[in-house]
């Protein structure tokens, strides 16, 4: 069917197509690259927001305040019991003096406010750090309810409000984000598919000529499919280059910004190559049938 010589000619054809139609190819790549940029910027923003939310919840702690005058033995007992609760990773003791020092630090410049106080009003406390996998409203509610009943415990506090409002907000955000992402994704696919199709259509006459001189379908198609794939790769690399520029620029204002993972970017390039190839192939099918 296809011999090595023909295969070599098909590669030649691809090179000729790419080399002699640089302007048209460049325009196609830029159009595809810019629409892909929208997609990757969206993905990077989503990634960063998700990470930020994750970091915020990771910093959530449960504070167990002890009754005034609780002795060391009881405090030790409470610490031990806290540690053995499910989902607890770490329990640290914060003495009332440490708490006051921390407060003073927070009120830097207005320390005189504390000078008015007759004595340190702050209680001793335990700071409970949950295991990362058990972070969530359920853990805090359950633990607070249980620990609140213990002897020597005055009060248990955590970011109740954050969990009441924040969690719903986060869920809402992800639903909207997903919907938006889907729309962007479909639009980008549509743009790329159409750009590739137009590139093929522009060479309708060339395809007719190929058919007239007796070229088989594979001979006609392969160069176009390769061209589609190469355009897809070029467009994805353009999008990644622009994304990197955007990342570097915005990192100046938003330090700690996360870049896309390299394996995800590699997958993205492969995906774009496939998209270009499939777009080209399906556009060819119509032309070859006529």
């Amino acid at each position, binding site marked *: 069917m296809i*011999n090595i*010589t023909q295969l070599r000619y098909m590669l*030649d054809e691809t090179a000729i197509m790419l080399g*002699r139609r640089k302007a048209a190819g460049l325009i196609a790549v830029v159009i595809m690259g810019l629409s892909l940029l929208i997609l990757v910027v969206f993905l990077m923003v989503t990634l960063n927001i998700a990470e930020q939310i994750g970091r915020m919840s990771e910093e959530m702690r449960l504070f167990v305040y002890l009754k005034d005058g609780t002795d060391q033995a009881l405090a030790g007992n409470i610490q031990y019991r806290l540690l053995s609760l499910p989902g607890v990773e770490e329990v640290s003791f914060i003495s009332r003096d440490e708490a006051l020092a921390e407060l003073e630090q927070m009120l830097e410049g207005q320390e005189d406010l504390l000078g008015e106080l007759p004595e340190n009003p702050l209680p001793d406390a335990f700071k409970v750090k949950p295991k990362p996998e058990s972070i969530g409203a359920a853990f805090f509610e359950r633990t607070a309810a249980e620990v609140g009943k213990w002897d020597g415990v005055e009060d248990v506090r955590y970011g109740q409000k954050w969990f009441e409002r924040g969690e719903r907000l986060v869920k809402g955000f992800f639903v909207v984000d997903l919907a938006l992402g889907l729309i962007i994704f479909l639009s980008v696919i549509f743009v790329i598919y159409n750009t590739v199709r137009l590139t093929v259509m522009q060479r309708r006459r060339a395809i*007719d*000529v190929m*058919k007239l*001189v*007796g070229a*088989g379908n594979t001979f006609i198609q392969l160069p176009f499919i390769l061209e589609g794939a190469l355009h897809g790769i070029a467009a994805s690399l353009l999008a990644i280059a622009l994304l990197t520029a955007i990342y570097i620029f915005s990192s100046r204002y938003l330090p700690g910004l996360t870049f896309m993972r390299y394996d995800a970017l590699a997958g993205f390039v492969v995906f774009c190559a496939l998209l270009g190839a499939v777009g080209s192939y399906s556009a060819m099918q119509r032309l070859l049938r006529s």
Partner: protein
Amino acid sequence: MSEQRIIAGVYHLSKRLGRHFSLEDISIQIANGEFVFLVGPSGAGKSTLLRMIYMDDRPDAGQVVVGPHVSTRMKRRSIPDLRRRIGIVFQDFRLLPDRTVFENIALAMKVTGTPMGEIKQRVTEILTHVGLYHKRHDYPHALSGGEQQRVAIARAVANRPSILLADEPTGNLDAMATKNTLELLFKINAGGTAVLMATHDIELVQGFGQRVIFLEHGRIARDRGMVYVGDVRDRIGESQISRRAQQLRGHDIPDGDQ
């Protein structure tokens, strides 16, 4: 004289095209080495008939036979093989604008997987034959209409087809280019390739003594079925081809061209 063998045949072909036009009961046989003019006014169905011979379209009834290919039991995948046995030339040349003269001709051989050495040799040979070897690196837009048509003809015969179909090959050409093109077709025919040339120009075909098929309103009005194999130029001389083209186009043709 070589032995007569039918290399392309159309048998009781009918084809409906739109409401008002159809080809009806067309039968034509073309022997190897024959030169046939297919003449008729515009819209008589010449192009449609040719398209059915190179199987760009299928007849509603009847059949077309080219070499081993029979239209009624032909599979889509054997079309490339059929096209390689037929050379096709059009009024509008249909060269690829982004390929040089050499590459345009080489393409016809590349699709068959011919080794590059052989392609180079053959393309050089044909280009010399059509007098355009010195323009092998030019792009089509840099050539005159006549030169483009010679490139198209060169491409059509690259794979040594047994028959060359030419659809109004002189339609876009001036008198001199018309003469050169006709001469080239005669020359190719003299080499043993059958030629079927469609034209609306009845006067152009007179005086050569070739077989002329008249197509009118989708039917064969007349088939002067004489078969002559050999170089037309031996019989009528170059001056007559030149005179005919000149009469038809009303232009002077300088001597010593080509």
